[in-house]
């Protein structure tokens, strides 16, 4: 609240004004004269969808049959009075939002209080004034139609995003794939990925190369939301395509990816990427980085994390970018961590020496494995909070001990 919100376009409001004339309105009054009078006021103003009930019980029946968008309710009625109708409707979640316009000759403040406590939205006093009645009816219906329009828009978009998000999840390597490919290269792969409900451009993946080698990539698209996800999807496709020819040569892989990205991406869009080959036989990680977060290597004792170089230019920025092949040793028991920048920032407790390296180092020193990884993820979740809208990824590659 209090943050200035730009009004909706004039079109949406004009539409809402026209649409209210079709909204069903139920008029409840025990006096035939009043029903006729209110009906005439509404008809004259162009409302096409007015129906009537002559007491509380009949009103509830009609509402159950056909929920109105507005109820114009008399209070003093034989049998079930207006207070009771209000209370019953408000007790039903389906009608919690129904605007109830109570027409009353009650002037005592106690009765007015009673009406509001029973759940009335608004009061109009008897004898009814045409202008006032119509002003109240319009204001409640317009806001209801506007809210409904916005709610259905939101429901549709959220539905579309939910499908897209599940496709994004489907792109990530499954635990089975991690186990199968990891064992070939003599490593255990664990990962933690958080995808924003609004989608995003974080993605990691693995590419089978040969009997003992495995390609791993982690990319983060600039921008956010749907457009970042679209770009992440095509980068994912390209990485898999390019791996066929360049999978064993990380620098060539990124240089080729960059050439494609430069032609595909729009101005201002780019991706930070790290791509590397895990070589189980040689016990090393050979990689190239395009402005990614630096890969972190924890020796088996967990002491002194070592950060690899990660200096290249982001992919998609300029044609002809070249990338450097770097090598990190990966001795048995060591852990290699690849992660998005959000992870590094989240765990950075400025100046205390406590950071991602310290957290992972401690987990590795305590024996690593599934428990170690789980404890790192717990720290991360704690640091980012449950409300973080940023995507983030942490990939943990642990070289098996002989």
């Amino acid at each position, binding site marked *: 609240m209090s943050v200035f919100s730009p009004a909706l376009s004039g079109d949406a409001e004009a539409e809402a004004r026209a649409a209210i004339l079709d909204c069903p309105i139920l008029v409840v009054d025990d006096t035939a004269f009043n029903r006729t009078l209110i009906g005439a006021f509404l008809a004259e103003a162009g409302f096409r969808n007015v129906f009537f009930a002559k007491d509380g019980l009949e009103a509830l029946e009609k509402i159950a049959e056909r929920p109105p968008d507005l109820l114009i309710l008399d209070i003093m009625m034989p049998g079930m009075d207006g207070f009771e109708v209000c209370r019953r409707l408000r007790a039903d979640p389906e009608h919690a939002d129904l605007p109830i316009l109570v027409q009353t000759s009650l002037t005592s403040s106690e009765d007015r209080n009673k009406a*509001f406590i029973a759940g009335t939205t608004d009061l109009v006093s008897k004898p009814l004034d045409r202008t*006032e009645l119509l002003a109240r009816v319009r204001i409640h219906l317009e806001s209801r139609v506007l809210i409904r329009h916005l709610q259905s828009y939101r429901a549709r978009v959220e539905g579309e995003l939910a499908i897209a998000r599940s496709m994004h999840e489907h792109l990530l390597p499954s635990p089975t794939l991690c186990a199968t490919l990891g064992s070939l290269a003599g490593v255990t792969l664990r990962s933690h990925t958080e995808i924003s409900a609004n989608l995003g451009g974080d993605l990691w993946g693995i590419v089978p190369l040969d009997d003992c080698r495995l390609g791993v990539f982690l990319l983060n698209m600039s921008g956010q939301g749907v457009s970042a996800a679209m770009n992440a999807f095509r980068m994912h*496709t390209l990485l898999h395509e390019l791996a066929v020819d360049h999978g064993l040569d990380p620098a060539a892989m990124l240089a080729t990816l960059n050439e494609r990205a430069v032609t595909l991406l729009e101005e201002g869009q780019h991706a930070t990427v790290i791509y590397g080959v895990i070589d189980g036989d040689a016990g090393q990680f050979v990689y190239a980085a395009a402005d990614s977060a630096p890969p972190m290597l924890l020796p088996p004792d967990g002491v002194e994390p070592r950060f690899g170089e990660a200096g290249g230019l982001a992919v998609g920025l300029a044609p002809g970018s070249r990338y450097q092949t770097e090598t990190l040793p990966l001795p048995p028991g060591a852990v290699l961590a690849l992660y998005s920048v959000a992870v590094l920032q989240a765990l950075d407790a400025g100046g205390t020496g406590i950071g991602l390296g310290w957290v992972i180092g401690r987990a590795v020193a305590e024996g690593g494995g599934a428990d170690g990884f789980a404890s790192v993820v717990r720290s991360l979740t704690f640091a980012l909070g449950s409300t973080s809208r940023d995507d983030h990824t942490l990939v943990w590659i642990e070289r098996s001990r002989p």
Partner: protein
Amino acid sequence: MTSPPSILPAQLRGALTGLENARVLVVDDNRINRNLLLALLERGGIHQVEQAEDGNDGLARLEMFNPDLILLDLMMPRLDGFEMCKQLRGDPRWKNLPVLVQSSLNRAEDRARAFAAGATDYVTKPINAVELLARVRIHLHKRALLHDLEQYHSRAERELALARSMQERLLPSPARLTSTEDSLGIAISAHFAPSSELGGDFWGKRRLLDGRLAVYLVDFSGHGVGAALNTFRLHAICQQLAAISDEPAAFLAAVNKRLCGLLPSGQFATMLAGVIDPTAGVFRYASAGATAPMVWAPGDNAPQLGDGVGLPLGLLASIQYDSRSLPLPPGGRLFLYSDAAIEIPLGGDVLDEAGLAAMVARRMGEEDGARFLDGLLDELRATGPIDDDLTALVLTRKR
């Protein structure tokens, strides 16, 4: 004025929580009234309250304070409440700001005048504390809800518009179509209309050696963001495969193999890939469950339908596709379309391929491709609602 009740009804206390960030501007020339309203709002859990002593003061403070609701007196010196209300409604920023009038004027015409000036609500003095707080709460809740929904709406709209422009840029630009026409003598008119902001349709073309032109049209299952994501990866695949195969059936098989590894189960795509070979005067194509391509030559009185039968992409990695061909002599025309064009409801049935072919036959005399397409689309839209992504291409060999 009644004094504020010492204890609010439990229902209202509960309902007022969550409003502690709400900002209320009280405009009243009487200091005692302002203080009473302040105390009342305070008791209702609303602490951010600003005061103004007349309409001019109110308008000035509006800018600084940016309230969520105004409590407005009517009878004030200098600028009264009616006039202040009218003036603030003239500013689009305050068009939807709730203005709750509190006044001792209680004649029907005063109320009518206040509503005509743009008041949202009206309570009469002496102030009834419970009623006033109930109304304040209703307006603030509605405003918070609207604010939230509007923010979602404008953010989503911005994002989807950006994504939409990216999707449009996947398709050949008008400049590229002109260059194809100039160099190959093949004119292309295209129509692309997703059913919402984004869609699962996609088409492309590529110049081959010897003056031939490759063209393809894809329709992913579903629509919206998810289907659009698939068009982006298919675009990447098609670009990558461009160098590998000119032959439609082999091209389709290669695309299929890749999509099988990418698509979650339940998703698939239909695709028609073909090559216009001017030297041989034929359109060679392969189809993965696409709609039947149509061709005709000058002087024909009905289009010739090709065969769209074939397993859609993404279902079975090992599938092979048949190579088929249709005649396409100089002056001949090829028409490709997504299935939205043949699934338009028509009576109890749909407009099927035969129905579309008959529609095409009636318009075959139109020499200009763009006008042919526009006329056909108008007729399709007049036939019934089109609730899927619709893409249509007309390729004309110049004589």
